[in-house]
């Protein structure tokens, strides 16, 4: 699963996520969403590190971010 999940249906094509992604992992799609906007897409998932800069800047709150958890941390959390 990609660390950056863009909800294309919420996107208004403002391009702020693309401009603020430090890894240049995002691009604007050629496709149109239901509202007629060109949504942002994670064109290069291998570059994405889940930093969430895109999600912070998205005025629509249309991006979810996931991060990898290490097993040690996960076990500690389970015990705690």
């Amino acid at each position, binding site marked *: *699963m990609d660390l950056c999940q863009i*909800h294309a249906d919420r996107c*208004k094509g*403002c*391009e*702020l996520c693309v401009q603020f992604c430090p890894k240049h992992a995002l691009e604007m799609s050629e496709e149109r969403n239901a509202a007629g906007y060109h949504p942002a897409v994670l064109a290069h998932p291998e570059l994405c590190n889940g930093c969430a800069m895109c999600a912070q*800047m998205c005025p629509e709150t249309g991006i979810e971010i996931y991060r*990898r958890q*290490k097993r040690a941390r*996960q076990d500690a959390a389970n015990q705690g």
Partner: protein
Amino acid sequence: MTTAMNSQDGMKKQNGGSVAAEDLVDLKCVFERPQSLSDKPFHYCPGCSHGTYHRLIAEMIDEFGFMDRTVGICPVGCAVFAYEYFETDMIEASHGRAPAVATGVKRALPDRFVFTYQGDGDLASIGMGEIIHAAARGERITVFFVNNGIFGMTGGQMAPTSLIGQKTTTSVDGRDARATGHPIRVCELLSNLEGVAYMARVALTSPKNINTCRKYMRKAIRAQTEDVGLGLVEVLSPCPVQWGMSPGDALHHIEEDVVKEFPPGEFVDKLADPVKA
């Protein structure tokens, strides 16, 4: 509320970065829609920070655990439908009167968290008298103020906060101080009033500034919950459509020009332990 996808599986296939594959057991959702934000898509124009500020308010309501005891007061302006976007009680006030409505709610129900959400036309033009007196009285309310230097909703007319030289539909050659005066700096003006417990201004132009905004908002909320006085956070916000700029250029314009007229920072902080936030 958009529910996070179940990430239990699919995970072990993930590889990359410096984390070894066998160490990976789960993907944790670190950024999603706050619970206090409704599912409804915003009606705002592309790149408009009204949506960003709504999200930050919802994050705060979640963080403080106030979802079941919040009353928000909506303005007239582009955010007139703000009551659609929060999973809390909301009241629509007439233009500029949100601080008066908030005063009534807070005095009648002091255990509620009461906030107003107001644009610069709403707060600094038609409603200037209301905010000055609410601040002077030290009402225990929190004001989330959106300064985009224009009347967005009605078609881009000049606001009291428009910059000198700014072209709007009612200042087509640029705002002229001799004709229409100088921009009103709300934080500077109100910071003289004893009833103000916390007041700050920040530009919503980068992830770093958004984080600063969160810090300011926490304090403006504590000004109310710790019974110190009125709290206010002014955000410098873009109106890409009425400014005639792309969303990215509108943010650059704020960082280059708007901050010169409206310097960001904290203006009042009477909280007991200012460093805590």
